[in-house]
């Protein structure tokens, strides 16, 4: 048996505070209104209850003035809820540009997080649904206090929802799409992650933990000095580094080399630019565009290039997709690997990586 919950749950982020103020405003206004109605009803029921000396009742049909009053006043109050709620929602819907980024993948029935400059961690889920390696690397989503973080999420199977009550936040996690959410944690501590969209048998065990830690602890965690997880994380290397290895392993570099007569566009500095498309129009090269180009390359052809890229759909896991996207994002001028480069192992990674012969996947 546990003790009663606190009156107001822990507020661990800037958004949580905004939520609470709005929540209590609505509570007070609706509370007053509801109690006023109850008071009126109670008074009338007592004062006008029938007794042996009650006379007949007056013929009262209504009052236009009252009708207008109790239409307009509630309407304005409700619109105030809408307006304030929209402002708060706007805050939640638009992450700041400098937010640290984390990828989270939901699948039945666990959560996996990948930092763009750090570890890959399982941050929650039902141990029964995990293999041995995964079970040993169950940890927490470690975040630094007082720094905004933007989380990009996708699902490998059905719809889930990443909910963090301490941040007063949740977002559905969809297959085939990315959704985003962001927090500005303000309080050091450990907080629940819940799956808030029913997803099957172990939906209620698809829970995890967020650990908000101090700046220094977080930096140590990122550089691997102080692994803040349960056990040694078997994969240690930046996501972009992982992506670079895949870029070579899958022979992307064969076409997307830095060579001027390459068969495919150079990807250096691509991220965030506007790409003119074959057949007119243009598209901003964001994560979704990059991912689509890998999985369905014929969907949007860059103007001036032929549709010859094979599709990698079904051949790379969601984790690898995120790594490739992170790598392509990070590609700066002059960093496209040499076609003949061997792929070196990152720090601390297992050293056995099979050398693939040059035959690209796809049809």
């Amino acid at each position, binding site marked *: 048996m546990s003790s009663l919950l606190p009156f107001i749950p822990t507020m661990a982020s800037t958004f949580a505070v905004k939520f609470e103020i709005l929540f209590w405003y609505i509570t007070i206004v609706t509370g007053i209104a509801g109690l006023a109605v109850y008071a009126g009803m109670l008074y009338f029921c007592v004062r006008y209850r029938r007794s042996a000396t009650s006379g007949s009742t007056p013929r009262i049909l209504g009052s236009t003035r009252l009708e207008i009053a109790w239409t307009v006043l509630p309407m304005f109050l409700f619109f105030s809820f809408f307006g304030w709620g929209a402002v708060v929602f706007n805050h939640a819907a638009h992450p700041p540009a400098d937010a640290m980024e984390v990828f989270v993948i939901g699948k039945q029935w666990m959560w996996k997080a990948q930092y763009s400059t750090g570890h890959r961690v399982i941050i929650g889920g039902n141990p029964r649904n995990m293999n041995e390696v995964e079970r040993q690397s169950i940890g927490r989503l470690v975040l630094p206090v007082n720094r905004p973080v933007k989380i990009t999420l996708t699902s490998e199977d059905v719809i889930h929802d990443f909910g963090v009550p301490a941040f007063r936040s949740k977002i559905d996690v969809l297959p085939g799409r990315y959704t985003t959410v962001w927090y500005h944690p303000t309080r050091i501590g450990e907080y629940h992650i819940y799956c808030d969209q029913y997803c099957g048998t172990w939906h209620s065990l698809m829970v995890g933990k967020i650990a908000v830690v101090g700046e220094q602890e977080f930096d140590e965690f990122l550089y691997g000095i102080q692994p803040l997880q349960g056990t040694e994380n078997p994969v240690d290397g930046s996501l972009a580094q992982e992506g670079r290895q895949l870029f070579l392993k899958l022979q992307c570099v064969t076409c997307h080399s830095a060579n001027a007569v390459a068969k495919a566009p150079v990807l250096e500095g691509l991220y965030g630019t506007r790409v003119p498309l074959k057949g007119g129009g243009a598209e901003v090269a964001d994560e979704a565009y990059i991912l689509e180009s890998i999985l369905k390359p014929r*969907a949007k052809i860059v103007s001036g290039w032929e*549709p010859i890229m094979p599709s990698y759909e079904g051949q790379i896991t969601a984790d690898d997709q995120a790594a490739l996207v992170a790598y392509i994002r990070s590609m700066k001028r002059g960093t496209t690997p040499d076609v003949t480069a061997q792929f070196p192992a990152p720090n601390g990674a297992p050293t056995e990586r099979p050398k693939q012969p040059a035959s690209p996947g796809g049809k």
Partner: protein
Amino acid sequence: MSASTHSPVLKHHFEDLGQQHASERLGMWMFLATEVLFFAGLFGAYTTYRLWYPAEFEAASSHLNVLYASINTALLVTSSLTMTFAIRAAKLGNRGELIRYLLATAALGTAFMVVKGFEYAEDFREHILPGAGSFGGEIKADAEARGLDTGKVRLFLCFYYIMTGIHGVHLVIGIGVVLWLVQQSYTGKIPPDNYSTVEVVSLYWHLVDAIWLFLMPLLYLAGASIKHSH
């Protein structure tokens, strides 16, 4: 309200025939509203995807058999004409003519379904099917050659089968009801003052026709600008 003064077709809970016919007509119009909402869900979903994936939807549509669809359109529109003549026959109390026109309507509707059967058979032969394994043939090769996403082509085919299938079900039900009217007329239950039963059924029939008139261009003519050699 003595029994001898009111028409045998007046139902006991109505005051008079005028109220009865007005109720029947209103009821059928309301039912048609439900059918419109029913198909509106399908059309809405189709429209959404068509706006998102125009290239794939147009390419997929270009592989459907416009000739069969055109024949079917002609059949169905003609059946609406015969149905209207049937109302006229009922109003005039001409039982033989009524039955003939009703049978013609049913026959044209059945002809539509027969043509549809041929069309589906051809679609199956040519692997114009949405399933992952069954999709193939020329439509698949053509989509790949154009660099299109075959998944979205299959999505179009999902709509094609579901929309034409559900329309077909409605048409078959309509044919059944028309044949029931034939039976009713044959047994003398449609005298001139009860012609509204025919009118009410014709409203349904016209709706099925009208839905086809929207369905056909959306599904078959979307890819009209793309020419193939079959």
